[in-house]
């Protein structure tokens, strides 16, 4: 059971991290969501073996409630932040009609300087992603 959960956490982290590297905001948002799920699942797994009763009076052998409380807090935070990111994505689409993350200022300055050096071969600024449909 725990090994299975550990594997699920690993897959969630790996795919989340991969999506985070993408150029499109929508994929980044999904990546953040997956990473958050992975971390929350890890919190629950940290509580020990699953399948035991919730906290009850008297008898021992119940499951540890603290990681579940921590997980619940973390879920709420992930939810709020994902909603905010979606709002950013929507605003970005409103402004540019696209949700691709642009190069930062410094990158563009370096690129301009490089273009000035060899004017015959201007480099393409589109980044590593295919053009928008």
């Amino acid at each position, binding site marked *: 059971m725990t090994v299975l959960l550990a594997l699920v956490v690993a897959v969630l982290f790996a795919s989340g991290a991969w999506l*985070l590297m993408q150029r499109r*905001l929508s994929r*980044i948002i999904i990546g*953040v969501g997956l*990473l*958050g799920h*992975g*971390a*929350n699942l*890890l*919190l629950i*797994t*940290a*509580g020990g073996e699953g399948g035991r009763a919730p906290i009850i009076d008297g008898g021992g052998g119940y499951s540890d409630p*603290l*990681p579940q409380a*921590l997980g619940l*807090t*973390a879920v709420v*935070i992930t939810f*709020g*932040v994902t909603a*905010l*990111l979606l709002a*950013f994505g929507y*605003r*970005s689409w409103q*402004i*540019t009609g696209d949700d691709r*993350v*642009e190069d*930062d*200022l*410094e990158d563009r300055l370096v690129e301009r300087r490089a273009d000035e050096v060899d004017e015959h071969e201007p480099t393409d600024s589109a980044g590593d992603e295919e053009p928008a449909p």
Partner: protein
Amino acid sequence: MSSLVPLAFVIPLAGAALSIVLGWSRASQRVISVTALAATLAVSIVLLVEADREGFIVHDAGGWTADVGISLVVDRLAGLMLVVSSLVLLAVMIFAIGEAEEEQRRVGFHPIYLVLAAGVMASFVTADLFNLFVAFEMMLAASYVLITLGGRPDQLRSGMTYVVISLVASTVFITVLALLYAATGTVNMADLSVRLAELDPAVRAAFALALLVVFAIKAGLFPLFFWLPDSYPTAPGPVTAIFAGLLTKVGVYAIIRTQTLLFDAPDWMGTVLLTIAVLTMIVGVLGAIAQDDMKRILAFHIISQIGYMIFGLGLFTVAGVAGAVFYIVHHIIVKTALFLVAGLVAHRAGSSRLSEVGGLVRTAPLVAVLFAVPALSLAGIPPFSGFLAKFVLVDAGMSAEAWIAVAASLAVGLLTLYSMTKIWAGVFWGVPEEEPSSPPNEGGRWSFVTMAAATGSLVVASIGVSLWAGELYDVAERSAEDLLERDGYVEVVLERAP
């Protein structure tokens, strides 16, 4: 007395709630914000005085003791941070009210700013690692909104970088918390300190490094600083000032707290921290030299200054840690003041690019004075607070024989002076070479006076730091002793549990 501790973040939170309800009236929002922040400052001062007298003030939230509940602790370090932060938060709020740009345009500015204040305050007082995560999230969620306030395309782009990198740091934080809980069965910092000591040294080292990475992203340490100079300068003026002054320092505070309290400061960690510190100082200051915008130059200087604080911590001596604490106090005030001056310049001249501004020493001599004092302080010119802070650190470095770090810190000080003279020559002397991108803000006389008064109060506070440097250093030294002893903190929290 201990029931005052939660007030440090409850007052701003209550203010935020009230501010949402009264969103239709900007005037009442302003009154609420200033009152709440002034009350927070008053509470912080009382807490610092009391913490310095008794050593620790412990509060069990909801009456639950440390074994099951969340403890809130104010020691000398937390007390100092509370006072300086609430002072800076108040000054920047007054500046924002005077500027009346985003503050006046958006209903959300006041409540979100107060939530940010609450998050910062809660990060300082909490003695529970998961609670620290929650406080960080409170602060960061507010900062995500503040940094993109206005919704301009460039803000959105650099805001995204900031949000995504912060989220990565938060996810790593949660992951480390889960693993720490699995290994020790607690998230209370005092309890963790005891139980981590029973673990295998290799596991402990892994935890120490993982926590360092989490907070290094937030503090902007080399090589995890790349998001900072890009995202900070695009935010509205007062927001940049508060981010530059406070947010990265909350990360530094968390590094100091965790590395001294949870782990036993092994030698290799000292070497790691000193290496990072030297690289952070040098990369930051070299980055600043290449910039041609006042705000961007100052943003790179945040990074190089963070290096000094980590240098002090990396020595793991009383003098070193005391130097780091002193440096943080000086830096928060001076850096915020400089960014507020950048806001004044942008307000007056319509731009903060060096090529588009010039001759302000004649048209706005007051702004020139307000810039000169913190700028010389940042560069470490006597008799300003920066000189004393650097002197303490270099002295501690020499007695610990960390020659490379000492040499680097002196060289970086010189290059900082170069950057400051570059700003001076570009903004206050000469004539503009190009037309500013936006027309100068006419504004009212009242608006300029309020902004200048807010900036001036921080400049005066930074002079105060150098006037009362002896007393301040004594407090910093006592806090360093507490931090390196760590038994005191652990005992005072755990003895309350049955």
